[in-house]
């Protein structure tokens, strides 16, 4: 038997990038969901919710695969705890994307025209934030190839530098959007308002988790 071969075994970074790609697919469903909401196409919303649920399930399978292998490995090139936290954050992003879809299926809500533009700005900003993280995370396999050093490492760190600012922007839009939502309290029923707020909170959490994952990724590279 080739024990050298077995000793290497399976590196976690290949599956980890697969996980990142699945999570990206989950996040990419958010904007179509919003568009379906504007069009009041509730059938489409249900279809998209099925889709994102399936994607989230697939992401979970990959996550388990990575986690199962981790405790049985010595000499990981990154801190095990940070790696687990990182994949945990990425996992939550997929979860929240699914939650968002589920919320939209709870009741046939209409999006008020006054907040429509800002809501779309917010969704786009959350997407930009998450996408920044996921683009950086997709480099994990290449990072492992160059042993987390050199030009590749500084490129990824540079990408991550932008992440904090993107998240801050998303936060700012969220606060302003929140005010706009409650400004509609005389025109809309309270349930709809709370519903908007619920959507907004879930999206904010996605941006937040993206930032947390980015912080983990950074310490993984630097240490």
């Amino acid at each position, binding site marked *: *038997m*080739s*024990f*050298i*071969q*077995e*000793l*290497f*075994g*399976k*590196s*976690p*970074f*290949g599956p980890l990038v697969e996980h990142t790609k699945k999570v990206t697919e989950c996040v990419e469903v958010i904007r179509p969901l919003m568009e379906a909401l504007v069009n009041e196409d509730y059938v489409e919303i249900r279809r998209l919710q099925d889709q994102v649920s399936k994607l989230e399930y697939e992401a979970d399978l990959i996550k388990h695969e990575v986690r199962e292998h981790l*405790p*049985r*490995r*010595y*000499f*990981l*090139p*990154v801190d095990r705890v940070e790696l687990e936290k990182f994949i945990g954050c990425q996992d939550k992003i997929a979860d929240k994307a699914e939650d968002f879809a589920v919320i939209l299926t709870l009741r046939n809500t209409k999006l008020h025209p006054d907040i429509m533009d800002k809501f779309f700005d917010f969704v786009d900003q959350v997407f930009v934030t998450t996408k920044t993280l996921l683009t950086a995370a997709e*480099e994990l396999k*290449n990072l*492992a*190839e*160059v*042993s*987390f*050093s*050199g*030009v*590749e*490492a500084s*490129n990824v760190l540079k990408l991550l530098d932008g992440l904090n600012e993107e998240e801050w922007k998303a936060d700012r839009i969220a606060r302003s959007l929140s005010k706009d939502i409650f400004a509609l309290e005389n025109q809309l029923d309270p349930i709809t308002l709370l519903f908007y707020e619920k959507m907004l909170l879930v999206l904010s959490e996605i941006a937040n988790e993206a930032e947390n994952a980015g912080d983990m990724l950074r310490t993984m590279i630097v240490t």
Partner: protein
Amino acid sequence: MDFIILAITALLGLYMAWNIGANDVANSMAPAVGSNAITLKRAIILASICEFAGAVLVGGHVTDTVRKGIVDPNFLASIPGMQQGDAATLFVIGMASALLAAALWLNISTWTGMPVSTTHSIVGAVAGFGIAAAGLDAVNWHKMGQIVASWFISPVAGGILGFIFFKLIVVTILGREKPTRAAIKITPYIVFFLVMVVTLATVYKGLKQLIKGLDWLTDTHTLLFALALGLVSAVVSQILIRRYLQGMDTLPLSEQLEKVEEVFSPLVVISSCTVAFAHGSNDVANAIGPLAAVFDILQSGTVQMQVAVPTWILMLGGVGLVLGLITFGHRVLETVGKKITEITPSRGVAAGVAATLTVLVCTRMKLPVSTTHTLVGAVIGIGLARGIGGIDRGVAKKIFTSWIITVPAAGVVSIILFIGARAFLFDIIKPLIIANSG
């Protein structure tokens, strides 16, 4: 009649060499086959040539240690009460028992899937028979201490070298802004170094010992020859690599890294060959050291201290290694090729070069070390340089456990076989040996 004893021991040596070939081959060629740098058939042919060359050209050094370094035949003869021929007879029986014991232990561990060092097996087995024959004092503990120390030092040295070589590859090539451009510049140096090492190891002393009448081949000439060959290979490789990588520095970084790994593929074949060569040079002794001792006794009644190991014995060992390779290598390497491997060619080269250097230096110092363990050390060194996605804890534990238990286990098997053989065969073999030496 002494021919029968020699033939039986030669068969045991062949059996052991076959075991070693089957047991260890995959580790030397695994990086090459695993990274799809070479087809299965070619890997086996190349490995055969390199193992054989290593065994015949440089195999004599460690063989000396196994045949007379661990148990000193003169000590057996000096024990009070020993009659003429007793010591020689015990030595013949003991060496044959040790061979059989080591080979059996290897077989057992192959069945149970334990990664066992062939070197540790034979050293344990030889020491075992020495203790059974004449007590603890029969073993040359000074030499034994050196050998055991080398089992600690060789993986550590492999690890340090692996760390350094891998870091060098990362800093000079992989970590650059344009890895393909850096590869065109740097890879020829690696080729130069690899070719130098292989040429020096092959030609220096080894070739002259094998073929008489090469007096013009002085050390200076050898060095010049190695330099020239290294230079030519470096220039040729640069032309080829330039042709392959030219203009690729505009590709995205990840694609450039892939291309660079492709360039490393032929190098990992070369470095795997050097590992096979080093393995042949060190591990052939595990099979033929005892055989050489028996041959000496049958020739002259004692183990000659200053005589070179006969070439035919080295060749027999080489043939045994190749047989093991051909019969088992196919099956083993096939599974290696199918498994998803994380050994990228750049890691394979770093580990291979580190292991080759370490094992060859130990061979020169007449120290029997484990090629597999040195490779494991090199892999861990690369791991410490953050070069691999970790190593499997279960496999690491298995290697460590077998590292610990092989010497005593092989020793115990050897003791049992020796005591049995002494009881039944002593009176048959002794007259043969006395007749022969008288």
